[in-house]
């Protein structure tokens, strides 16, 4: 039974991760994680210190737990670039600083790094207001490229087809077929209400304005990063899905840190980088849940939120995993799951690391829409 420790600065509480009910635990690992949490209050998503918080927290956790596998995500530069209009020089500085922070971790920890960028950010060129459809258009805070279209009328289809800012409109089955051809054991959502009838795909630089999109208009959004940069000392990789088996294959001989830097493209990576496939055909993953899960599981996850699901229909009363966003089950096949060695994760991309990587202990910020509520540690295992 996984334990969640919530720290809202000078105040902690412990909960069962699955039910959200208060739970006592004095397992030494939980006590240790709680002490690390209290030593590292989260500065906030766009605070300059947010990436330093990732490094410092991870180093503290490493010094007490001695893991073999570390998963990190550095995201401050992504949030900052997405929402604030920095000068080009300042943008460059932010991205370079994120890479430098990853380097600082590597230098101080001695771990062998596999560094993955989620690709470039580009200025928002315009957006499509789909609030007037007869049917329902659903996008999400963090997606720019994809929007689910539910129950469109003929008038809606005519309107959508007239938008030259739209790259394509993909029927549900075509979307499924595309990924099933690439991966026959694809997991498809069972609840048909959640999947849209069509996936609307924006042209590069465009975003959607629909139910569920943010009140804060983005300044920059992810480019169509069909390839993303990866630094790997273990030899070449050509597809995002190859990274998990590559890391697993070398964990018996190396202590490895998988490091994600969001919003960062190839120009900030060393020349020895590999450019790896990030999606299939016209579909590229944006930074976010589907990207993290594809990387961690080594399997395509194109239907992971936020691809435009009608998630409010799913939101039943007795929801499981209340701390874990849209997820209602611990994902299978993740990098840390079933790994016999010790593993940890630390990240500042919301409450996500514990589900994405399946490691023994994860520490992550508890922030939503840039509102900083504190941090959370999740102890999936306390017996190693």
């Amino acid at each position, binding site marked *: 039974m996984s334990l969640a420790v919530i720290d809202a600065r000078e105040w902690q509480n412990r909960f069962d991760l699955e039910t959200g009910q208060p739970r006592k635990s004095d397992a030494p690992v939980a006590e240790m994680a709680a002490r690390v949490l209290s030593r590292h209050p989260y500065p906030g998503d766009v605070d300059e210190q947010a990436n330093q918080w990732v490094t410092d927290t991870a180093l503290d956790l490493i010094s007490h737990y001695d893991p073999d596998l570390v998963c990190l995500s550095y995201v401050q530069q992504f949030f900052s670039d997405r929402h604030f209009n920095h000068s080009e020089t300042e943008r460059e500085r932010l991205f370079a600083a994120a890479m430098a922070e990853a380097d600082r971790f590597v230098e101080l920890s001695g771990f062998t790094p596999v560094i993955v960028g989620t690709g470039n950010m580009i200025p928002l060129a315009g957006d499509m207001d789909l609030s007037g459809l007869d049917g329902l258009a659903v996008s999400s805070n963090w997606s720019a490229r994809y929007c689910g279209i539910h129950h469109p009328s003929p008038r809606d289809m005519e309107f959508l087809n007239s938008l030259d800012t739209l790259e394509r409109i993909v029927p549900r089955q075509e979307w499924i077929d595309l990924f099933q051809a690439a991966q026959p054991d694809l997991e498809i959502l069972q609840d048909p209400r959640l999947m849209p009838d069509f996936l609307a795909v924006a042209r590069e630089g465009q975003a959607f304005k629909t139910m569920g999109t943010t009140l804060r208009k983005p300044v920059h959004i992810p480019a169509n990063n069909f390839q993303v940069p990866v630094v790997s000392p273990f030899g070449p990789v050509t597809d995002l899905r190859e990274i998990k088996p590559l890391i697993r294959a070398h964990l018996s001989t190396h202590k490895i840190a998988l490091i994600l830097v969001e919003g960062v493209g190839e120009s900030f990576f060393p020349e020895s980088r590999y450019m790896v496939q990030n999606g299939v055909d016209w579909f590229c993953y944006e930074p976010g849940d589907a990207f993290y899960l594809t990387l961690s599981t080594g399997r395509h996850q194109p239907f992971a939120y936020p691809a435009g699901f009608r998630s409010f229909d799913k939101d039943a009363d007795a*929801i499981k995993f209340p701390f874990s966003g849209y997820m209602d089950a611990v994902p299978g096949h993740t990098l840390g799951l079933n790994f016999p060695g010790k593993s940890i994760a630390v990240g500042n991309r919301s409450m996500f690391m514990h589900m994405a990587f399946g490691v023994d202990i994860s520490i992550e910020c508890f922030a939503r829409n840039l*509102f900083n*509520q504190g941090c959370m540690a999740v102890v999936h295992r306390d017996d190693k």
Partner: protein
Amino acid sequence: MKCQFCERTCDLTNGRSFCGMYMEENGRVLERFPDQWCTYNPSRIESVPFYHAYPGSRSLIIGTAGCNFRCRYCSNGFIACRDPADLQEVMYTIPADRLVAMAKKMGCHNIVFNVNEPAVSLPSLERVSHYARKEDIPMGCLTNGYTTESATRMMMEIFSFVHIGLKGFSNAFYREFVGIPDMTPILRNIRMFAQTCHVEIASPVIEDVNDHELFDIAQFIHDIRPDIPWHVFRLLPEHDMKESLYPNIDRMDQALETSRKLLPYIYFHNFVGSRWVNTQCPNCGHTVIKRFSLGCSGDRLDEFLAPDNTCPECGTPIPILGTRVAWNEKQSVSWEAIS
């Protein structure tokens, strides 16, 4: 010509308006941006937070832009404290009838105005209420309560449940942190709303700034009606107060101890995992509603243990507007079925 929607009573001559949402035209006060909304999104009513109105229901959350306050800690400053004219490109144009149809399309049980201050958009909201009433969809709002008497009466017609911010209990606090000279109209309006509407009250607490006023607020609420739910919010350092300290949760909790003797329904939240979000029967102490808090805008109903709005242990009535509504109780209906 003076605007009569809030107690600022701006002279709108020469295009002046504090909130930026009204103008004078041909001797009438008109909305500058009618039917323009900054969001439409289904959410749990507990996340607003309304704890004693239609528990468990699905609300269509809407908001506009602009505000008649300038709170130094505003967490929605990027919408509320900017010139609404600059925000029009991010807004949605949705006429009132379509907004109500949208609520039905998404299976929402009610419509709640959140995000900014409804007083700055009352004519649009009045139109929405016209259609909402036809569809039997109640409306609620969050307001700072700084409206004129006539606007308050208008709001009492539009909204059947109201969450009013009572941010401190001194003019000095309101002057320094909110930017208005006198809080008396807010107290008057709370009394007015309490006559016909379901009322809950929210007080953001800032350590060493307004925590010493908490008991006065509790006394005021008690004198109106002790069963009014009171939400004490731990304020996050936001907007112009980013550098402030995060209020200490244990100290805030202790500061509320004496108030708990006056008011049976005190909640302390706006931080993840709060232990103070359940409802206890004031007579026997039995927990009658269990909730879960994920911090700002993330509260939800866990278990509703008060059938017929009474304590199952001792039968004491629990003041709740409406009855418990299951999140997916009504099937969403198609647009065609509505129009």
